């Protein structure tokens, strides 16, 4: 039972880390290597709204998601648009931006272990003798809601359909009047907003530290590669595979192998099925 409960929590956490990255790559083929940095930045923005400006927590959350989303959109509009289509340059530029954000935060004095966000609901409950706190329950509930809303958004709204159109065939979508760059801005905005949402949900469980930005990026990439780059549903499935694999590793092999799981998953995927579980477009390329 404990494996099921904490495996689910771990998996949903991984899915939340990765959804923003998957959405951006899926729609605009843009590998946003600043994703982990935006996650940490969102944590510090929320903290600042809460502690420096004294805003109410719900307002601080909404504003932090919006601000991070806008920052993501601006990153595309002013920087990444210039290297669009040049994959290596996109990776270098976004990674450099991520580094600049993280090191900038550290330079600005955001270091140490005393930055934290309050949990939404205090307390814990017990399932079959296993104690779970309400914040983790919320992570699972909100995580599931985010996946459902993302599906509805991409299937029933004009912007969502345009994003899917871009994901399926960018040239065809442009021929139908969809502005590729505008959609990429929207995707970056949404992706960054999702990174912020993940941060706000998960950071109250621990503390906000600059270094976690690199870990988040690695985990997001691992999930997306296993799930198939570009497929956010694949990312959700991969999050569950890696999440449960991590928990089973902890239980049966030892805690110190836990971090190896994500990296091993990348290596195995690249050897056995480079397109990942749901990377259809890449799979076609592989067949050709």
């Amino acid at each position, binding site marked *: 039972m404990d494996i099921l409960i904490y495996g689910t929590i771990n998996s949903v956490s991984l899915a939340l880390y990765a959804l923003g990255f998957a959405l951006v790559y899926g729609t605009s083929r843009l590998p946003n290597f600043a994703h982990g940095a935006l996650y940490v930045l969102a944590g510090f923005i929320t903290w600042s709204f809460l502690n420096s400006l004294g805003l109410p927590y719900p307002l601080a959350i909404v504003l932090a998601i919006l601000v991070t989303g806008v920052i993501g959109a601006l990153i595309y509009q002013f920087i990444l648009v210039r290297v669009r289509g040049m994959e290596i340059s996109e990776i270098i530029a976004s990674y450099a931006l991520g580094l600049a954000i993280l090191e900038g935060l550290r330079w600005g004095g955001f270091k140490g*272990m005393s930055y934290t966000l309050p949990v939404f609901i205090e307390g814990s409950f017990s399932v079959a003798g296993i104690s779970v706190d309400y914040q983790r329950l919320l992570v699972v509930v909100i995580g599931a809601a985010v996946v459902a809303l993302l599906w509805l958004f991409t299937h029933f709204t004009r912007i969502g359909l345009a994003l899917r159109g871009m994901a399926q065939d960018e040239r065809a979508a442009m021929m139908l009047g969809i502005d590729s760059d505008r959609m990429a801005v929207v995707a970056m905005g949404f992706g960054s907003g999702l990174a912020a949402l993940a941060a706000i949900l998960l950071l109250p*469980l621990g503390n906000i530290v600059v270094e976690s930005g690199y870990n988040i990026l690695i985990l997001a990439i691992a999930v997306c590669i296993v799930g198939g780059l570009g497929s956010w549903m694949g990312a959700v499935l991969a999050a569950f595979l890696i999440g449960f694999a991590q928990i089973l590793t902890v239980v049966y092999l030892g805690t110190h192998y836990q971090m190896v799981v994500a990296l091993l998953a990348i290596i195995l995927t690249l050897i056995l099925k480079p397109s990942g579980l749901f990377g259809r477009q890449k799979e076609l390329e592989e067949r050709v």
Partner: protein
Amino acid sequence: MKTRHWTLLVIILALAVLLAPGSRALAQKPIIIGCPLSTAYVYGWDAERAVTLAVEEINAKGGVKVGGQMRPFKIEVLDTRDLEPGVPVSEALLAVEKLILDKKAKFLIGGPVRSEAALAAMPLISKYKVVTIVTTGVLSPKYHAMVAKKYDKYKYCFRIHGEAKWLIKEILTCLLEIKQKYGLDKVFIMVQDVAHARTAGKILKKVAAKKGFDITGLEIYPTGTTDFSMGLVKAKKTGSQILSLWMDMPESAILLKQWYDMKIPALPFGSTLAAAEQPGFWKATGGKGAYCLANVVNAGNAPSEATPWTMKFYNAYAKRWGVPPEGLGCSSSYMAVYVLKDAIERAGSLDPDKVVAAMEKTDIMGVYGRLRFDPKSHQVIPSFDPKDGAVGSIVQWQDGKRVVVFPKSIAKGQIELPPWMKK
């Protein structure tokens, strides 16, 4: 006429400043102390602050007397980044070499902070013959064992704070007190996957078992782990009553929050538990760090009256930096500067071999007790009594405060159990 008066006044003031004893020292060539520290982490910046404070105090009193001349100290800090996950040891070595060759450091105080990096830096230190006092992190017993083994090569290396073996002795003695008082004897060990913690975990497992403790598990966590739930579930299932934690990573705060949320009936007892050492820990965990015990290595890093100098230092640090001493590297880094000053003055020279000889004869009453080095291993001589040696401190978080609960000679309170552990 008025202009003449003003000119005369300015000349007199300038002469007065130049001829004052303190400024004469400042006019002399400064003695450069290099501080290789992982400055983004508490064990780095606390040491930097403590060294700065000591240097400011010493310089304000005229500096260091070297061969009849008063010379000021000057510090040069370089970030070794050795506490950051994934940063190779070579980064720290580059920082050490740069301090020696580029910044012309005559002495090194501080780190590298991570044991792996400090051990790797030892050959470099002996190559350049730079007297080095490690003051923060570096808990591996191998450090002073290497000095003892190859004295002629590594004699320039000193350590002024407690090391893992001594910390284990302190922890074990404290655990025996807890066992005697509350009957808790089932220990679950959770350590970070770094040299000092792995070694300490293994030693503790062996030694505690010999002392009659039931070791219910030993888990090793990679640096950066963000979920400890399964380990805590394991601890609960095995009926563990004490969690022995050896982690300096920031994520240890997650562990303590999870412990509180899951109401694990085991008392958390941390060593190098950086998160729990800092004064801001209570606020950062929203009080969920209550009852957590933490070994802050030396007295003076938490309020106590180990010696008359302890609270003087504690208050001076708090006044200078607006926050009380923050981690295990504070009082030791502060004292290292005073010990170096004392040794230089007795040696009457900056010659490394003469300073080493003087350092070996160090015997001063410092912030955390009597400070002497073992002449063979250059490890500070520890004790449970500040009158005999360097005394440690184990604190417990009670009502938002760090209360020193061990050793008895300096304790300010008793160990308490969380409400869900009380029978």
